[in-house]
């Protein structure tokens, strides 16, 4: 197997949906909401992106539609956990299940097909050629570049901006934040909504950028990988980027090995195994430093 630019190009492609979703998860985590429903929100984003693109004829309106639909969907989690004090894990699992059922149902009623909807006339996100960027960094959809910008914005926002500081405060000590006149609920709602928008973009990139179609359950565990990336990256935007990159490279290398005659089943499993291994290593190291893992049982 040769290590060339095409390999990294496809790694970046695999990274993008996970990165966007994980960034949303990280912001939620920082605000003190454990968001395990990333997979479901992303799937809603895939479907509404394709539906929006199909009915308006514009991939970009599809992206907007995906972000809005996914944000609306994320409100279930926000209302359920923040206002009604429901269990975030149970709600997240339910959101993931609901998304599979809902998108399957809508696929049948709206498009009248089962399994996969694809049409040559469905508008997808085209690649943008960036001069002097080389084959690896050029030719992606705008959402890919947007995801890198989002990492930078999130990193600066969380570390420097007053709102970011308050958001972290809400996550770490909601009572203290409330005493200082910061409404925890408001920040948590904003965090969950942001994660909804980001998951919507992740879904749009998956369904309109990486491919141009919608198929049932097409997220296939990427939302869960994003949840793991949040843990692995300790809910830091840059950490999440590195964790997502690890997965993206594993997927791209797996895909390449498949072309060289490795059975597809072995390479399918590779990203999950790599993620698990990375999780082991990082927890082992963190344990020595006595740092708790995000989302770990206390």
């Amino acid at each position, binding site marked *: 197997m040769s290590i060339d630019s095409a390999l990294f190009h496809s790694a970046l492609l695999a990274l993008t949906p996970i990165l966007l979703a994980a960034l949303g998860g990280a912001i939620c985590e920082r605000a003190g909401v454990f968001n395990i429903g990333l997979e479901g929100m992303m799937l809603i984003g895939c479907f509404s992106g394709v539906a929006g693109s199909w009915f308006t004829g514009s991939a970009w309106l599809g992206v907007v539609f995906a972000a809005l639909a996914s944000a609306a969907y994320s409100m279930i989690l926000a209302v359920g956990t923040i206002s009604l004090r429901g269990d975030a894990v149970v709600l997240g699992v339910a959101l993931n299940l609901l998304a599979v059922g809902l998108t399957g149902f809508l696929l049948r009623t709206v498009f009248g097909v089962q399994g996969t909807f694809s049409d040559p006339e469905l508008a997808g996100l085209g690649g943008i050629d960036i001069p002097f960027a080389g084959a690896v960094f050029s030719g992606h959809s705008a959402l890919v570049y947007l995801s890198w910008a989002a990492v930078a914005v999130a990193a600066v926002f969380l570390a420097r901006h007053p709102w970011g500081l308050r958001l972290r405060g809400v996550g770490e000590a909601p009572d203290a934040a409330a005493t200082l006149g910061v409404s925890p609920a408001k920040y948590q709602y904003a965090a969950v909504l942001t994660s909804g928008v980001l998951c919507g973009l992740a879904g749009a990139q998956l369904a309109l950028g990486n491919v141009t179609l919608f198929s049932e359950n097409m997220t296939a565990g990427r939302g869960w990988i994003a949840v793991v990336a949040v843990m692995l990256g300790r809910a830091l935007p840059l950490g999440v980027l590195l964790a997502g990159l690890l997965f993206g490279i594993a997927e791209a290398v797996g895909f390449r090995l498949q072309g060289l005659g490795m059975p597809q089943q072995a390479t399918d499993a590779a990203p999950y195994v790599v993620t698990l291994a990375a999780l082991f290593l990082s927890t082992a190291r963190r344990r020595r430093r006595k740092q708790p893992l995000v989302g770990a*049982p206390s």
Partner: protein
Amino acid sequence: MGATIRSLGSRSLRSPALHSVVAAVIVGALFLVGTGADPVGAYGSVVSGALGPDGIGSTLTTGTSVIGLALALAIPMRAGLLNLGGDGQLVLGGIAAAATGLYSPLPAPLTVVACLLAGMAAGAAYAALAAVCQNRFGVPLLVSSLLLGYPAMSFASYLARFPLKEDGSSLPQTRRLPDGVELPAFGSSTVTVGLLLVAAAVAVFVFADARTATGYEIRMTGLNPRFAAYAGVDRPRLTLRLMALSGAVAGLVGAIGVLSFPYRFIDGSLTAAGHTWTGLTAALLAAAAPLGTALAALFFAALEVGGLAMERTTEVPRELTQVLQAVVIVFLAARLNLTWRRARKKPTAEIEVKEVSVR
């Protein structure tokens, strides 16, 4: 006696689970109206399709898997642990049973027993691995069980497509099990002895939960892990044992699936129906109470089979039943019910026991 029945009746009327189911049925009706279908007719076809003479056998067959998997997931959930790797354990159980069935030198009836045991052992070992990941490496069970599920499915898929593949077939399936290596069915139906095995497992769980010290330890850990730790419950050990048990039941369901029609392991067929998630939903609905979980699972199995009938007669997609299941859990988790409104008025009720806490 009358008073007990009356109090039981009023208790179930106030139960959040019942409210959630009613709310989900209403949401489903709105969906049906939204797509231009007649809700009464659609729901009617669900009921007649699931419980009518043509459907009941199918409901019990589906029920065997769904109840089994619901039980598998309820066992650790009773102690507040969430096993999300049910699909992987199920599939490994199935492929282990298939391999045993194909290569066992024993006479057919003994081979059947060996298949069931192999399935349980494979599922148990794999689920225990997830527990080890939490105990030794500190990776949360939720994540370790889930992530381990994917390689397991890939591995089983590989075995079914290459070493165990049926020669000359274009389908990704193993060879058919030898004659006689199968679970006997009742009459001409598709319901097999597997249903009895699952029922027996439920009975054991009901008994162990209510009457044994271990059952008490498990419930105590689920209700209040810190108190349980003070009381001397060894949590890592409990996690390991519960996960092994959970995986064993999931593996058993896989083995039952392979030992029933069409008597082979077909790649993807065990997980295609999504019974693991249905089982998880059932266990969540019943807060992992043993009998309640089985009943909820049977309810969902009926809903699923009825959904197929609905699709045939009214052209409403069967995915509606999946939406209903998830909506039930959304309502339940968000506690959109009378208990919740009361709890809001009285802040002290905040301390009420959480049914499932996984973190």
